[in-house]
C-alpha cells in the first residue's frame, strides 16, 4: 500500500505542476480588435520617425524567411515585434509618431531583389509574414498608443507588384530577350516583365510585324508568392478580384518620361510594378475597402501614400472623402493622409492638397532647395546656396499649398502641415551627399525640428547613417546596439524636447527675419533666422537663428541688421545652449548674434523658458 500511495502522490503532483504552468491559448489583449479612437490633437505636435520595418529591429527570428544578412537588396529580418521592443529608444529620442513601411503581402522577390521594403503588393488583404501577424502588429500599435505615440501606415494605390507579364512575343511565357534586327530596327533589350512605355499599350509583335496589344498574363508562382492578387471576398462576388484581372491595369509599359503627363499617370512604375486603373470605380472601391480595413483592424492614425503624382486627382478626391467618412463614423477623427510625390515642383506637390484631397504632402521641394542646396552642400562653397533660397521657397508655400483644412481632415491647413524631411528611403542619406559632414546634419536637424510643419526623421539618421542610394540607404539599425549616447541622437532628442516644450515651435506662424545670398567669406554668410509666434501659439515666441556656413563664424547683421518682433530690451535665452546664454534685444528690436560655423540658437523670452 505504501508504494501505491507513493505512486499516486507523484502522479498527482505532476498533474498539479502541468495544469498550473499551462493556461489555455488566447489572443493577448494587445492583439485583439481595438476600439477606434482619435489619438491626435494637432499633427504639428508630432515628430514622425520613418521606419523601414525590415531594417529596424529583429524581434523574432522565426519569421526570418530568406534572410541574407549584409545583402541590403534582400530581407534582413526586422519585424513589428522588433519595433515594439524598442519603442523606448524612440521615445527617448522624442519621436511621437511611427511611419511604418507597407504591411501587406508582397511578391517575394523579383530579378534577384527581395521585397523587404514592402512596396511590391500582391494581396492588399493579407499581412506580410516576414514582419509578423495581425496580433503582433496590433500589439505594436497598442503599445505605441500606450506611450502616446501614433502609427502611420505606408500604403500604395498607384501600382501592384510584378503580378503579370506582357506576352509580347505570344509564346506563353515571360521572356527577356533582344528585339530588333540591328539593321532595319535597333537592337533593344526587351523584358516582358517591365517593357518600355508604348502609347498604344504594350504591343505584341513578331518578325512579321505588330500583333496588337500584348496579353497581360498573370503569373502563378507560389514559391515567391507571385500569384494573382486577391481582394476582400465581399468585393468579388464572381470570385475574381479586379486586381487579379487585366481589366484592373493600364498596360502601357514602364514610364520613360516623367514629364509626360500620360506616361506619369498611366505608365508602370519602374521595376515592373503594374499601374492600376484607378479611374475604375471597382478599383477605387477595392483601395478604399482594403486600406480602411487595416485602419479598422489596427486603429491606425494615418496614411503615408506612395507615388501620389501617378494617380489622377479624381481618385484622391474619392478616396480621401470615403476614408475620412468611414473612419469618422467609427469615432476616428484627425486621420492624417499625406502623399509622396517625388518632385521638386511646388505647384505639382500642392495640387494634391487641393480641397477634397490630401491633408498634406512630403515637402520635396524643400528637400531639394533647402536641405540639399543649403545644408548638404555646406562643404562645397561652389554648390551651396544662400539662405535666401529658404525664404523664397517658404514664401511660396501659401500659394502652392492649400490654406484651408480639408473637410473632415486633420483640422490644419496643408500649408501648415507639410511633412518636412532631410532624406528618406528613396534618396541617398543626408550624410552621404554631405560627404560625412555631421555638423551640417545636426544643423539641418535643427531646422527640421523647429520649422513650420510636421518633422519626419528617417530611421538611422540619429545614428549618423550615411548610406548612398537605394539600397545602401536602407542599413540595418540593430548593428548600432540602439545606442542613445551619440551626439546626433542626443541632438534630436533635445530638439524634440524643445518642440514639445515650446508651443511656438509647433504651432506658431513663421516669419523669416534674416536670410542672405552670401555663402562665401562674407560676415553673414550662411545666416538664417526665423521667428515662430502667433498663429495657434498664443503668447509663445521663439526665434531660431542658424549659421549654415561650414567655414567661419557669421553674424546676423548686414546693413540693416536683424530686426525681430521680440520686445525691445527683452532678454532671449538660447534654450539649445546648455549654458542657457541670454541675449538682450536692442532698443530698436534688433539683435546682433554671432554663431559659430554650422551652429544654431533657439531663443525664447526669458519668461517663457521651461526648466
Amino acid at each position: 500500500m505504501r508504494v501505491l500511495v507513493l505512486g499516486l502522490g507523484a502522479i498527482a503532483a505532476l498533474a498539479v505542476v502541468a495544469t498550473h504552468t499551462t493556461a489555455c491559448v488566447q489572443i493577448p489583449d494587445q492583439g485583439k480588435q481595438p476600439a477606434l479612437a482619435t489619438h491626435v490633437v494637432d499633427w504639428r505636435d508630432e515628430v514622425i520617425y520613418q521606419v523601414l520595418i525590415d531594417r529596424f529591429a529583429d524581434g523574432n527570428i522565426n519569421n526570418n524567411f530568406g534572410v541574407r544578412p549584409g545583402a541590403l537588396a534582400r530581407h534582413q529580418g526586422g519585424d513589428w515585434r522588433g519595433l515594439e521592443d524598442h519603442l523606448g529608444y524612440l521615445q527617448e529620442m522624442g519621436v511621437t509618431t511611427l511611419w511604418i513601411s507597407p504591411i501587406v503581402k508582397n511578391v517575394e522577390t523579383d530579378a534577384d531583389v527581395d521585397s523587404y521594403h514592402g512596396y511590391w503588393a500582391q494581396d492588399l488583404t493579407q499581412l506580410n509574414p516576414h514582419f509578423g501577424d495581425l496580433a503582433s502588429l496590433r500589439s505594436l500599435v497598442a503599445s505605441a498608443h500606450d506611450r502616446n505615440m501614433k502609427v502611420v501606415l505606408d500604403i500604395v494605390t498607384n501600382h501592384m507588384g510584378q503580378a503579370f507579364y506582357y506576352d509580347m512575343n505570344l509564346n506563353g511565357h515571360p521572356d527577356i530577350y533582344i528585339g530588333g534586327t540591328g539593321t532595319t530596327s535597333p537592337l533593344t533589350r526587351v523584358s516582358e516583365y517591365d517593357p518600355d512605355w508604348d502609347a498604344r499599350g504594350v504591343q505584341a509583335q513578331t518578325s512579321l510585324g505588330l500583333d496588337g496589344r500584348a496579353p497581360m498574363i498573370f503569373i502563378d508562382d507560389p514559391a515567391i508568392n507571385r500569384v494573382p492578387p486577391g481582394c476582400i471576398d465581399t468585393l468579388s462576388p464572381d470570385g475574381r478580384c479586379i486586381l487579379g484581372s487585366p481589366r484592373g491595369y493600364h498596360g502601357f509599359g514602364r514610364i520613360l518620361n516623367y514629364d509626360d503627363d500620360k506616361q506619369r499617370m498611366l505608365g508602370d512604375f519602374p521595376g515592373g510594378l503594374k499601374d492600376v486603373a484607378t479611374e475604375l470605380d471597382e478599383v477605387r472601391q477595392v483601395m478604399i475597402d482594403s486600406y480602411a480595413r487595416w485602419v479598422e483592424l489596427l486603429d491606425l492614425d494615418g496614411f503615408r501614400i506612395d507615388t501620389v503624382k501617378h494617380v489622377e486627382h479624381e481618385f484622391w478626391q474619392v478616396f480621401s472623402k470615403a476614408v475620412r467618412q468611414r473612419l469618422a463614423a467609427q469615432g476616428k477623427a484627425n486621420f492624417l493622409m499625406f502623399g509622396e510625390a517625388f518632385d521638386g515642383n511646388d505647384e505639382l506637390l500642392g495640387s494634391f492638397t487641393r480641397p477634397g484631397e490630401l491633408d498634406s504632402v512630403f515637402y520635396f521641394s524643400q528637400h531639394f532647395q533647402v536641405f540639399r542646396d543649403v545644408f548638404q552642400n555646406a562643404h562645397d562653397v561652389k554648390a551651396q546656396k544662400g539662405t535666401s533660397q529658404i525664404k523664397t521657397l517658404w514664401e511660396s508655400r501659401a500659394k502652392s499649398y492649400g490654406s484651408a483644412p480639408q473637410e473632415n481632415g486633420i483640422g490644419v491647413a496643408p500649408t501648415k502641415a507639410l511633412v518636412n524631411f532631410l532624406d528618406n528611403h528613396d534618396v541617398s542619406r543626408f550624410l552621404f551627399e554631405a560627404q560625412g559632414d555631421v555638423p551640417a546634419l545636426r544643423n539641418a536637424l535643427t531646422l527640421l525640428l523647429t520649422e513650420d510643419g510636421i518633422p519626419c526623421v528617417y530611421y538611422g539618421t540619429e545614428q549618423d547613417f550615411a548610406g548612398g542610394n537605394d539600397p545602401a540607404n536602407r542599413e540595418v539599425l540593430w548593428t548600432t546596439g540602439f545606442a542613445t549616447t551619440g551626439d546626433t541622437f542626443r541632438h534630436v532628442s533635445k530638439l524634440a524636447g524643445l518642440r514639445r516644450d515650446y508651443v511656438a515651435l509647433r504651432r506658431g506662424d513663421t516669419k523669416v527675419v534674416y536670410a542672405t545670398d552670401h555663402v562665401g567669406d562674407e560676415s553673414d554668410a550662411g545666416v538664417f533666422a526665423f521667428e515662430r509666434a502667433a498663429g495657434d501659439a498664443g503668447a509663445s515666441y521663439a526665434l531660431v537663428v542658424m549659421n549654415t556656413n561650414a567655414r567661419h563664424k557669421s553674424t546676423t547683421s548686414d546693413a540693416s541688421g536683424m530686426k525681430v518682433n521680440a520686445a525691445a530690451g527683452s532678454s532671449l535665452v538660447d534654450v539649445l545652449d546648455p549654458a542657457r546664454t541670454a541675449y538682450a534685444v536692442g532698443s530698436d528690436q534688433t539683435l546682433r548674434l554671432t554663431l559659430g560655423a554650422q551652429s544654431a540658437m533657439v531663443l525664447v523670452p526669458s519668461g517663457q523658458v521651461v526648466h
Partner: protein
Amino acid sequence: MMPTSVAVRGALAFALFSARALADDAPAAPAEALSAPAAAAPSPPAAPAVAPSVADAGRFEFGSYGRVRIASDLRGGVGRTVNVVANGTRIDEDSYAELELRREDTWKGGATTKVVATLALFSPFFHFSGRPEQQLAVRNLFVQGSVGSLTLWGGSRMYRGDDIYLLNWWPLDNQNTLGGGAAYAIGPDTTLAAHVGMQRLDNAYQSQQVLAVAPFGSGTVAVQQLDRPRTIESVKFTQLVRNGRLFQDPKAGFKWVLYAEAHQISAGVARDALTAQDRGLPQDYGFLAGAQLGIWSGERDTHLNLFLRHARGLAAYDPLAAPQTFANDKSTMGTTESLIALGGNYEKEAFGIVGGAYLRAFRDGDPSATTTQKFDEGTVVLRPQVYLGQHWGVGGEASFQARRLAVPDPEQTSQPLTASLWRFGVMPYFSPAGRGTFKRPQLRLVYVATLRSRGAQELYAAQDVFAQRSVEHFLGLNVEWWFNSSSQP
C-alpha cells in the same frame, strides 16, 4: 506462435521487461505515428522470463504488423486523412507495414538472447503509385540478452510503453533511437528500466555537410559542418499491484508507472544556404516527467490507462520531429508540453467498446504570443462493436477533435482560431481469429463522414478542396494484421 489473448501476450512481455518497460518494439513510427497497437495493459504474472535450459537452443521467427487501405472520397478522389490534431482517430490512417525477422536463443546457464530486425514499409505501395521505389526503413536492429533479473540490449530500437490503439499513439514514452538500455526486475511486480539513445536527423537542425577543397588532388570532399546529435536518457519505474492484493479477482490488477526523460543537444555551426555564412546554434536541453495509472480486469482485453506527461524545452519535441520554431537565441527555451490521456477497452459477450481521449497543451519558445505552434488540442473517440458470431462484427465510431491555435481567427480576429471535426463511421468487418478488439487479422469495410468546422477549413490553402468543403466522406477497404511480432503485444 501468436499468443491467443492480450493477457497472455502481456504476460510474456512482462516476463521480459515488466509491462513493456522495455516495450518490445511496438510497431513504432515516426512523428505521425504510423503504426499499430501495442497492448494496452499489463497482465498477470508470468513464468520466469526464460526457463533455464540444459542445452543451447534457438530458432528463427518471422512476425509482422501491417495495414493497407484504399478509399474514395465519394467525389472521385482518394479518401484523405482529415485530422486536425496530432493524434486523431486512426480509422482512416494510411497504409504501413513491418516485417520482422528474429533469432531467439536460450543458452546453457539460462541466459537468453534475441536478435531483432524489423523493416518498415511506407505508403504508397507500388500497386497504387506505379513507382517501384519503395520507402523502406530499418526500425529495429538490436540484440537483447537476459540473465536472471537483468536484461540488457543495444542497437536500433522502437522502445516504448502502452499505447492508445484508436489514436495509434504512445502518450507516455515512445523512443526511436540508436542506443542501449537495461532493465532490472527488482521483484516480481517491480521493474526499473533505463535507456540512453542518440539520433542525428538528416535535417538542417542537426546535420549538415558542406563541400571543401580536397586535401589531395583536385575536386571536393564532404565535411560534416553541423553535427548535433540529440542524446536522450530515459528511466522508467513500474509497479504492479495484482494477484489479489488490490482486487478480489486474481486476474485483475493495477499498475503505476513513473517515467522521465532528459534530452541534450550540443552547440553547432550551420552554414546558411542563402548566404554561405556560418551561424551558431546553441546547446540545448529539455526534460520530461510522466506517469501512468493502469487497471485491467484480466477478462479478455478489458483495461483502462491514464497517462500524464509534462515536458520542457527540447524534450517537448518528439525525437523524430525537429523543432521548427525557437526562442530568439535559437534554443527551445520556453517550450512546454502538458498532456493527459486516457485509453481503454471493455469487452463482454457480444459487445465491446474501445476508446481513447486526450488533452494536450503545447507552447513553443517563439517570443510571439501568437504562433501556430502554441495550441491546445484534444480528442475523444469511441468505437463500440457488436460481434456477430465468432468471425464477424460491426463497429461504429464517433469522435470529436479540436485544436485551438494561438493565432487570430481570420473572421473573429480577437479570438484564437479553433479547428474542429466531428467524425462518424461505421465499420463492418471479418475477424477470422475470433471476437475481440485486438484480434487480428481484420478485413474491414469503412465509411466515415467528417463534419469540418470553418476553422478546420482555414488550415488549408485556399486552392485545396479541404479549404472549401465542410463535409468529407471516406469509403474504403482496410485490412490490418499482426502476428508473432515483438513489436506487438
